[in-house]
């Protein structure tokens, strides 16, 4: 099971890393690249805490993706969400609404929310439920999370309007 050199871009940074076929994207990011923002949860595709965004900004479960398949591709993790030195509106909103309890699922929640709001800044209740169904918060629930997403959506909508005027 020879190792293979892959070129992987994470948060805009290019990496070359030797991986075995059986290593998942999650394992390579955490163990080889030391990018530990993405969490290792159930590792069985049930909990969603390992969610990262793929090339089109779509949500991907990094625990069920083989690293070799990501040769030449790019991903965004929670470490790459902030804009310059400022937190992304979704992150700010999560903080303001206390949509974090132990924080373990937060990277998965943020990446799932970002995938939704990147394409839809006026999500309905159903849209939010559907987008977030794949991430499970074991501490408390999704009420504050949903409030935070709605708030972030309105910030992003305002930003769109301002951009439109300028």
């Amino acid at each position, binding site marked *: 099971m020879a190792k293979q050199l892959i070129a992987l871009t994470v948060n805009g940074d290019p990496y070359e890393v030797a991986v075995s*076929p*059986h290593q998942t994207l999650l394992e390579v990011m955490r163990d080889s690249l030391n990018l530990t923002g993405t969490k290792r949860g159930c590792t069985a595709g049930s909990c969603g805490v390992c969610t990262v965004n793929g090339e089109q900004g779509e949500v*991907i*479960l990094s625990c069920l993706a*083989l690293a070799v398949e990501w040769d030449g591709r790019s991903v965004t993790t929670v470490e790459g969400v902030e804009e310059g030195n400022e937190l992304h509106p979704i992150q700010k909103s999560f903080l303001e609404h206390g949509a974090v309890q132990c924080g373990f699922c937060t990277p998965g929640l943020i990446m799932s929310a970002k995938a939704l709001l990147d394409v839809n800044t006026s999500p309905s209740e159903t849209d939010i439920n559907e987008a977030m169904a794949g991430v499970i918060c074991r501490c408390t629930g999704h009420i504050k999370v949903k409030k935070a997403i709605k708030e972030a959506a309105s910030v992003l909508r305002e930003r769109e309007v301002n951009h439109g005027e300028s």
Partner: protein
Amino acid sequence: MQLPQFEYIRPKSLAEGLAALAEHGDKIAIMSGGSDLLLNMKFRLEGPAYLLSLNGLSELQQLEKLDDGSLRVGAACTLTHLAEHTIIKECYPALRAAIFVVGSRHVRNMGTIGGNICLETRCWYTNQSKIWRDTREGCFKTDAEQCHVIKSAPKCHALNSTDSGPILMALDASVVLASHTGERIVPMREFYQNDGVEHTVLKPGEVLTAVVLPPAKGRSVFRKLSQREGLDFATGTFAAAVIGSNEQPESVSLVLGSVAPEPRVMPQAEKILLEGGLTDEAIDAAADVARRALLEVTNLFTPTFYKKRLIKVLVKDALLELRDQRVRG
């Protein structure tokens, strides 16, 4: 959980992949999205020496309208791609409904239609961690000649949870199975087998390359029941397709899913609706047939008595909804 080790094969063309399949026989597993196979490998239910990846084969990711009006869908199209595709939304809304309830958006972004059709069967006994299984006796899926779902059964009774299978059967779709010696086309109604281990007619060396949907005709409906609305295997699914009027239907196709090792066609219930039309009495009778058709076993999580009650309501509700749909040519 970590994956067991394997040799990774990424063919540049389907032909190259088929040659690898022929060469490695039953030592090779086929992966497209990976959300089912990799999970089973992590649970040590499968340990292939070779893994053939279909990702990157653009010839398996095409949607193509054929001359006779049917739609050929490449097996490696992701479920999200199909659920958001205009043709599927407009012409096959019941299929769209079935695809949209698979797993979560995360799973649908990775999972493919071919993978969902071939989804591995599951049961409450074997789909546990290896440590859990090692303390107990084996079964047909592992290393013994017994089934824990039905103790005296001569074969595996794991549950087939495919969400897309029943509606594809009801819509009279076919699948294209390719091997290095050629292709064969199998109607979806003949694709599954009532055995949890050999649950499809796929032979070693064969791969499902496409689904062919006949031109959209008549009305169809799909319903799924599950304990949670998102990210859950079905407690029961029901798919129905009717061509013709409510009073005198020309054809009726009813399929129950997640009740057995194969999606169940219900010929007796179909006959009732064909002869009686979609009247209240006929729908009631058909729903009752569905209830009685279930075996008295708990394959996965739902106790049978509960499931039997649910299925009757599920079938009735779906058929009433179908009856109210506008009749299409």
